[in-house]
């Protein structure tokens, strides 16, 4: 139980990667605050953990809205007494060709990915600095670093920003024993993959069959693959790793 009595808040934890991370951290003894924009999804995950005898609460909040984020962290601290771990997982995609990209397409993606991470880290650091202990993990994408794809100028910019945010925040919070790292997953089989298949005009099975040809390990990743790396980065085994981005995509 590597995270016994640690308190973890995971944003966007109602589905996909966020859910897998919440479950994994709970497996290792963490008390988990399951945040999602959709209360039903968050409650579903929290209930599942409670049925397993674990400690968890659901927390609906829009990470783009500072008052909601502040309130969520206050509620979590009141419930569990501390905040040790923050996983900034909430993210959305609005893929569209640049010349057709609206202000809303740009703003919404940047707001959730960057502003949301800023809001949550800002709230979390208050507790972490006081505790002289904290782990922040930002879930980004390899897109801006390695892959630059069409139709993702907004997503690319937000994720590139998130990597820079990670490095700078690691420098600022290191003195308080707070580690800040980034995970950049790609080719993960989630709801977003299904949406990607639809956008490409392919059946999901076909996308899976062909996409693996780009992956040296010849398989799609699972949310569990991402959760395992998140677990490592929030555990004490990675206590000398900070300001880093780990790409999880079955290859370089």
């Amino acid at each position, binding site marked *: 139980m590597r995270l016994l009595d640690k308190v973890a808040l995971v944003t966007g934890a109602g589905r996909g990667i966020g859910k897998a991370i919440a479950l994994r951290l709970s497996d290792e003894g963490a008390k988990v605050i399951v945040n999602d924009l959709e209360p039903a999804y968050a409650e579903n995950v929290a209930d599942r953990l409670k049925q397993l005898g674990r400690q968890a609460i659901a927390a609906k909040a829009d990470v783009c809205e500072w008052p909601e984020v502040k309130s969520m962290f206050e509620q979590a601290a009141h419930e569990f007494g501390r905040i040790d771990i923050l996983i900034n997982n909430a993210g959305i995609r609005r893929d569209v060709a640049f010349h057709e990209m609206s202000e809303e397409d740009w703003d919404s993606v940047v707001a959730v990915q960057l502003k949301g991470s800023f809001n949550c880290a800002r709230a979390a650091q208050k507790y972490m600095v006081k505790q002289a202990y904290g782990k922040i993990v930002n879930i980004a994408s390899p897109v801006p670093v390695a892959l630059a794809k069409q139709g993702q100028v907004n997503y690319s910019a937000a994720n590139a920003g998130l990597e820079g945010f990670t490095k700078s925040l690691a420098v600022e919070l290191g003195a308080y024993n707070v580690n800040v790292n980034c995970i950049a997953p790609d080719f993960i089989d989630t709801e977003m993959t299904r949406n990607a298949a639809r956008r490409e005009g392919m*059946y999901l099975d076909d996308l899976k*069959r*062909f*996409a693996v*040809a*780009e992956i040296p390990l*010849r*398989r799609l990743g699972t949310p569990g693959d991402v959760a395992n790396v998140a677990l490592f980065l929030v555990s004490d085994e990675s206590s000398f790793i900070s300001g880093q981005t780990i790409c999880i995509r079955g290859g370089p």
Partner: protein
Amino acid sequence: MHFLPDTEEEDAAAERYWPDGFKQVIQKEVRRAIRAKLDERSLRRVHRQAYRDKYRELSQFADRIADMVVIGAENGADDGFDAVYRAFLTESPLPQARYYARRFWPQIFSQELKTRIHLAVASDYSQDDGLQHAYRVGYTKDYYNFDEFIDAMTGLLVTGVMNGVDDTLGRIYRSFLATRALPPARRNPRRLKSW
């Protein structure tokens, strides 16, 4: 120096080739297996999006892919043989077979198909005087008898066939993902017996 019979005195015009009759079995059996599994539903959208200009009918497109895969299979067998040949040249043990841990869709290598190819290769190679010489000179300590040696060598070629199919499918799928022309597929030249 090497495990191969000297051919320096032989008439250069009397070219002889390493056995490759088994490739006819590959051409027939691998083609049948891949064509049966190429789900036209999977290819329909890809064909419509990017390949309809060149291959008017979906069946033509599927046929072309099957032909490419067969060439990949044959070339893969050559890769397997080349690894063995290098071992002969350097007086080294036969190389280890390197199986891909995961294979691309569609997976066509049933035990039956592998066995058919194995038998065809073994049948060709067991009659070859060059391989008999190589065994006598270099491998009697490693293999109990010539049949066992041929079996090991055949395993390498069959692995090569399977990996060749995978490599070709991978190249084809990467073309699909990038919506670019299908990659070229060219048969290797025949392997000339020479030293």
